[in-house]
């Protein structure tokens, strides 16, 4: 007969603590894994939104963003997040503790948190790079995109997070800035950064006529784009899960320390998404903008995911998503060619979401002596996030433009970036299918000569 052992209270306590810690790790591990679907989604979405001649180049750009942004967050991004909650003056102890040679920045048996949070932040950074890449497809230089995405994902988003998505961030402490789902710190910053780059980059050849009217440039696979957008939505559940603090053995809290739970996020994420789909459907009737509208819906309710009534989240998502395609049309009036509507979805969606949250969440209390939520605080936060994205985005892209490094040469753009710089072919059978005259009712309707790559 086996001898039964009785655990002491202390042993039981240690066991419970360890179980809680492991549960926390597992939770963020899967959130991070899901967030990779955001990147997969953007990959599919942008390849589909590119013309056939640029399909692979768009993919390479998106993949490279991941490869550059992750080490950037390791090298300096995580330190920026930890060191700059007071503004532009760093906390040196926090800065040094998060540098790549510190004990917490690697396998550490006494630290179950840093790596898992760093991973989530690195994936948030990759998301900002993906937001930018969509706006500038088909004419931006790969190297320029890499420089811009390192600045955005490796530095700016982490500065934004330090100011407005940190329990001691100055925007939160002084103004009660409330942005639990990162509408401002991720989406708005990236959207405004993308807009600034688009201004300097210029439109794709053929996008606008001399009289200012716009021509449609249609991507080669809308189904691929729509599936990509749906993948982004799946990834958002990891993204938003990563926006909550797993409080072992106690009520979960948001990034600011206010109590919340995943139920709140589930209600409002899904209702915002559904509202966004319908809102964009009402103004466009087409699937690309419907799915983009779903994203807008989630982004627009993201600041108050923990506090909105789901019905209100639905209405907010619907309203902002209905307006987003109109914002994109407004950009076209100014001859701004944001190829996938990144500003309308992320920049405008985040900005509108923050302002609306200021209306409905004004007066909600904060914790630890921080200012309560107010419209003024949300407005200030939205302006700061817009400026933090737009000003550096404009300055860096302007500098790149001046030295001739921002845009591909016209002959490469016209020929297509795949033939020019990618040693692979997206659809090898395509030439065989369409490289000859096709007929309808015996009449030749088109002759499409397709240039192929030498083996």
């Amino acid at each position: 007969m086996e001898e039964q052992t009785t655990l002491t209270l202390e042993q039981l306590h240690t066991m419970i603590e360890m179980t809680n810690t492991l549960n926390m790790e597992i939770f963020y591990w899967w959130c991070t894994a899901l967030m990779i679907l955001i990147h997969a989604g953007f990959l599919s979405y942008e390849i589909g939104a590119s013309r056939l001649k640029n399909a692979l180049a768009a993919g390479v750009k998106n993949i490279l963003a991941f490869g550059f942004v992750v080490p950037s967050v390791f090298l300096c991004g995580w330190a920026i997040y930890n060191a700059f909650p007071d503004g532009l003056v760093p906390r040196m102890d926090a800065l040094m503790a998060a540098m790549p040679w510190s004990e917490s920045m690697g396998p550490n048996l006494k630290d179950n948190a840093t790596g898992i949070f760093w991973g989530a932040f690195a994936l948030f950074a990759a998301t900002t790079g993906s937001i930018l890449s969509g706006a500038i497809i088909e004419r931006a230089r790969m190297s320029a995109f890499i420089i811009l995405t390192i600045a955005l994902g490796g530095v700016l988003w982490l500065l934004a997070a330090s100011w407005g998505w940190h329990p001691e961030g100055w925007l939160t402490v002084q103004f009660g800035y409330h942005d639990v789902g990162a509408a401002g710190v991720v989406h708005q910053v990236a959207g405004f950064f993308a807009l600034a780059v688009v201004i300097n980059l210029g439109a794709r050849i053929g996008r606008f006529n001399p009289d200012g009217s716009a021509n449609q440039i249609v991507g080669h696979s809308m189904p691929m784009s729509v599936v990509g957008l749906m993948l982004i939505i799946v990834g958002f559940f990891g993204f938003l899960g990563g926006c909550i603090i797993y409080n072992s053995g106690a009520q979960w809290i948001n990034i600011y320390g206010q109590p919340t739970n995943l139920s709140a996020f589930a209600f409002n994420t899904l209702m915002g998404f559904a509202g966004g789909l319908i809102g964009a459907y009402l103004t466009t009737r087409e699937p690309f903008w419907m799915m983009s509208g779903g994203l807008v819906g989630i982004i627009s309710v993201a600041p108050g995911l923990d506090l909105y009534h789901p019905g209100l989240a639905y209405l907010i998502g619907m309203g902002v998503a209905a307006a987003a395609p109109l914002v994109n049309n407004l950009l076209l009036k100014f001859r701004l060619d944001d190829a996938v509507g990144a500003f309308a979805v992320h920049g405008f969606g985040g900005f509108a979401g923050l302002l609306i949250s200021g209306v409905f969440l004004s007066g909600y209390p904060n914790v630890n002596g921080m200012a309560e939520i107010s419209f003024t605080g949300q407005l200030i936060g939205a302006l700061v996030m817009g400026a933090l994205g737009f000003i550096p985005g404009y300055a860096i892209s302007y500098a790149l433009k001046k030295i001739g490094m921002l845009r591909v040469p016209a002959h490469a753009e016209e020929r297509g970036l795949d033939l020019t710089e990618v040693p692979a072919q997206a659809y090898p059978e395509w030439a065989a299918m369409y490289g000859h005259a096709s007929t309808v009712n015996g009449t030749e309707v088109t002759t499409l000569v397709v240039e192929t790559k030498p083996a």
Partner: protein
Amino acid sequence: MSISTFEGAGAVFTFADKPAILMVITFFVAAVSLFALVATMIHEKHSYSDPQPKKLKH
């Protein structure tokens, strides 16, 4: 090897007890990233000046 036993160990990664080596590794990570960026620029320069389509890689 930075530890001789797991008993009571914290940071267990390679060179955890040698911050100078970690700084050198960090420097190489940054340098390699920079090299990849420069390699991209060179690839672009050659691609844009080459009238032939890029050859397929097998």
